[in-house]
């Protein structure tokens, strides 16, 4: 890409700031043969351990929840539900470990199974599990993973505190965001920035406040620079980003039982027409700002955390 730049024209990606790290290449450089649960698998150059794991009938379920594996999206390796045991490196995330000749991979050792199970439960702990009002009920990758792994009662419960729910963002005519169902897999951010090169979505915040937001710094989809291409909704594994018309598609048909009132708070459209053009881009905040007072306070008073216990 860089060879096409001229000195006067900055690269197109310069103003795109998705808020994510620049990961190294995590794929093999050559064809490699590895052993997964006793079966030898040969994978092409550019493969990870997950490619080999997916090629065999493994002894145990490897959810690899955040993995997408198409269109150069990922591996983000955030959910860590693809942890497998290896003879050379111990426990590793299969989705972001290069295939390596001669490596012996086990999916069903005690530590690997424990790590995948605990991490899947940790994902569920921060997910609004009101599947019966969710438009993705029945075609949700998190739901599938939970069923495949026989999760009946997640160790840490589910995200069930209505007071802590973020409002549903139903302000756009096309795409609805319900962050209470977001597992931060980052697929939408990569689809938006790396595939569509629209530079609308980003990851923002830290710790429990980490969320998908907008590079222009606005709060709602309607105010954002979204062009409604829908790629984010296509790649979303859960009901977090859905096409507006099917947001309620799978809701049980009961009077007063809707997807929106299951959350209780919604950003609605302002109904002012945006016209044919999306808002002008170019207000992206890409510069690192000095740490804010809140951040400083949060960092400096290590042992004066509010509200303990």
């Amino acid at each position, binding site marked *: 890409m860089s060879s096409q730049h001229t000195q006067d024209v900055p690269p197109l990606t310069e103003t795109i700031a998705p808020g994510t*790290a620049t990961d190294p290449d995590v794929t093999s450089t050559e064809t490699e043969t590895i052993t997964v649960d006793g079966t030898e698998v040969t994978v092409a150059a550019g493969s990870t351990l997950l490619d080999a794991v997916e090629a065999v009938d493994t002894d145990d379920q490897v959810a690899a929840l955040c993995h997408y594996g198409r269109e150069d999206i990922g591996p983000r390796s955030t959910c860590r539900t693809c942890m497998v045991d290896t003879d050379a490196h111990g426990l590793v995330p299969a989705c972001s*470990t290069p295939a390596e000749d001669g490596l012996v991979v086990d999916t069903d050792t005690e530590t690997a199974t424990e790590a995948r199970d605990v*991490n899947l439960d940790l994902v569920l*702990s921060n997910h609004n599990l009101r599947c019966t009002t969710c438009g993705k009920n029945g075609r949700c990758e998190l739901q599938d993973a939970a069923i495949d792994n026989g999760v009946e009662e997640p160790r840490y419960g589910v995200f069930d505190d209505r007071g802590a729910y973020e409002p549903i963002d139903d302000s756009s005519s096309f795409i609805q965001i319900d962050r209470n169902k977001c597992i931060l897999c980052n697929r939408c951010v990569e689809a938006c920035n790396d595939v569509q090169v629209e530079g609308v979505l980003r990851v923002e915040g830290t*710790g429990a406040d980490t969320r998908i937001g907008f590079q222009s710094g606005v709060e709602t989809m309607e105010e954002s620079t979204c062009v409604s291409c829908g790629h984010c909704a296509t790649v979303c594994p859960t009901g977090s980003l859905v096409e507006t018309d099917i947001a309620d598609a799978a809701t049980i048909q009961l009077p007063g039982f809707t997807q929106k009132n299951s959350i209780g708070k919604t950003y609605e459209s302002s109904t002012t027409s945006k016209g044919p053009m999306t808002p002008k881009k170019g207000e992206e905040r890409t510069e*690192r*700002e000095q740490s804010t007072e809140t951040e*400083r306070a949060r960092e400096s008073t*290590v042992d004066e955390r509010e509200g303990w216990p």
Partner: protein
Amino acid sequence: MPPNNITDHRVVVRVPSDSDDVRTAASEGDANVVAVGRTGIPDLEPLVTVTIEGRTALYPNCPPDQAADIATDITDGTLDEGAAVIEHDPDAASFPAAAVRGLDLGTRRVLGGCGWRRPASAADHEAEGGFVDVSPNDVLDAAETLRGRGWGDWRHDDRVADDWRRLRDDEHTAAVVVNAHAAVDGLLLESAPLEVLEGAQLAAQVVGAEKVVVYVSEDDERAVTRTRKAADAYPDPVAPVDVVTGPSAYRAAEPTMVLEAIEGNHRLEARLRPPGSSAPTLHETPALVHTARTLAQLAVAVRTGTPPTRLVTVSGDVESPATVELPESDRLADALAAVTLVDGFKAACVGGRFGGLTPSLDVAADPDALADADLGTEGTVEVLGETRCVLEFVGKRTQFAAETNCGRCVPCREGSTQLTELLRDVYDGDYDAEGIEELTRVMDASSVCEFGVVAGRPARTTLDAFDAEVAAHADGRCPTGTCFDAPEVTH
């Protein structure tokens, strides 16, 4: 070289460069007054010393008027025998051992220049034997046993020389990144920046790096200015030196986030580090990331061939914190002699903000012994006094992890949140030790970066060492009386 303050002057009055009042007062007379950096023992500061021909008088906590008197009196050329006087080699270019608390411990090699040599004086550093002319092979030989210091080092606790050998054959190495985000690394940059820069130059020479990038917290302005000054004074560097600041947030010391910050990302999160030997990259070109501590150790090892030491900072329930330098065979307990405990000693959190809690410091300062004891190797000993509640301590520490992690991976982001909840549940009578152990095991085994790997260590080690005290909380009782309101008296 301009004159140094070691052998080129008969009388040297050293004043702290941080204290403008003392410095100005002492400079009023005709004495040869030089400004030096912090010693690592804040309890002594402002510290003024007067050296004449192998004898040095120490004046701890010296107010400006006394500093002015000292500088005036010294013009007669004799030491004030009323002060604490130490005898030493007249050519001593490192702070000599002194019978003053904090300065009487261990051995000052890496810290040798701190409080003794002018931070940005190439002449002073040369008087110590600095700026050695050695071949890359000599550097690699000296680095053979060198292990990365602190969690900010890409090779934390691991040998550094293997990467250097590999990158030596690489066509292009972008930079030697000096991570000085941690407080102790900031101390080195403020007080002995040339020691750090020499280590960086030696590493740059081995791998053929095109530049040295020194990375410091945006809050550490003194380290920035001193390092720039020292870099300007550095004679014939093999690689030019840049100084870059990053956010002051704790996580910003993690080596992959250091690279993200230097590259200018507005939001810091960890990069993936696939297993194996891959080198860090800066702007997609191989680089090294080492802490200032690691590189200062290299400079000392190349110059003197002496065995490595450990910098240990004692803080917490003490009157004043102290940073000392110990041989690796010394016990951590030895470092306690540098401080005054204010509430006795119950436990210490050893090895960083997410260190291990232990009731005993009878463990050697070397990384293997510390790892065996499930303690951290960051070089910090945070004392918890007799009346401190370990559950409260570890709860708040875990909450800190939950609030300040980068947010990238589930085991760290959601794990630290759920771990906080599990610790909170103890107060409601639900002490799930197995659940806590399982969670900390998974955080350790599957987090993307070291922040998450160690975030559960305070909790895990507390359950090991203070199980009964935690369990008491589940029965509604806090042995130190910290956690619950006073029970109502019933008759």
